[in-house]
């Protein structure tokens, strides 16, 4: 149960770009989950995807309220904390990826994270985001292309800065 809650918190952070908002969203999502009579039980196989869908709906409501659907996330709030023990170059690459990811539209960021970070199947992603399974592949592909382009642009920018 704890790993599902933690993963759902990460998804909320990835969508909103804010840890505080993510905690609020998670709290609302669990209240909804407890109130919903036909909710699957936490030990059921479909519980994880179902709970992520509740979190997705709460996060989308938040984005609509805050009118942030197409805007990028606030990079500094969710960027990974620097670990002095780990390899500096690897840390820099991670930070760069966070920046590129946060520069995407919320919907693109979410679909990439659901697949490549949370490792959901296309069927689960379709259920969580309430879209057709066939749409998942095309949207995911476009999102990955967008992420690759942002990453290349950021890396070039950083290379130019370092070269100065």
């Amino acid at each position: 149960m704890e790993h599902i809650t933690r993963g759902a918190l990460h998804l909320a952070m990835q969508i909103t770009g804010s840890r505080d908002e993510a905690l609020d969203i998670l709290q609302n999502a669990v209240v909804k989950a407890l109130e919903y009579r036909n909710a699957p039980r936490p030990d059921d196989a479909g519980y994880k995807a179902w709970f992520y869908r509740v979190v997705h709906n709460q996060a989308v409501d938040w984005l609509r309220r805050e009118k942030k659907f197409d805007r990028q996330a606030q990079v500094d709030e969710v960027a990974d904390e620097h670990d002095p023990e780990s390899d500096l170059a690897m840390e820099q690459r991670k930070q760069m990826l966070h920046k590129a990811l946060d520069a995407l539209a919320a919907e693109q960021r979410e679909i990439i994270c659901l697949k490549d970070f949370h490792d959901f199947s296309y069927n689960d992603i379709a259920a969580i985001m309430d879209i057709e399974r066939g749409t998942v592949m095309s949207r995911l592909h476009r999102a990955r292309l967008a992420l690759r382009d942002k990453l290349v642009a950021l890396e070039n920018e950083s290379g130019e800065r370092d070269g100065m």
Partner: protein
Amino acid sequence: MECNEAQVLVSGYLDRELTQQDAQRVRNHLESCDKCSKAHAEMKLLKERMGGLTYPDTDRETLAALEKDMLSQVGQWSGWLLVALGILVIMGFGMYTYLTSPDLHGLVKFMYVALHLGLAILFIVVLRQRLKTYRNDKYRKVKL
């Protein structure tokens, strides 16, 4: 298979979400096309890098407190709901018994209804004000 078709299917191929037949077609194309093969390698690398992302950790206590808080919130709401339901049923029953009693004068019945209606209106007005204040309160998330 043309590059345009292969490009869209590359993500599905990478995620092992294609049918055996489509996966084979993409594999054959990748073996013969440098451009698509490069795109596939880039996507694969990106996927691996995404899997290695980390986020600020949230300690067990925070998550446990969150769940506990949520349970108490639900408990509180259920409690208030039961109290409100109980009051409504008792009031309704009282009113029904009172109003159907043949011994009472019509004016007394009218005053009784007016008193209850007034109380209900006052309750709704205060509740509406409280909800409005709660929604617009900028500081409600500030933890003291």
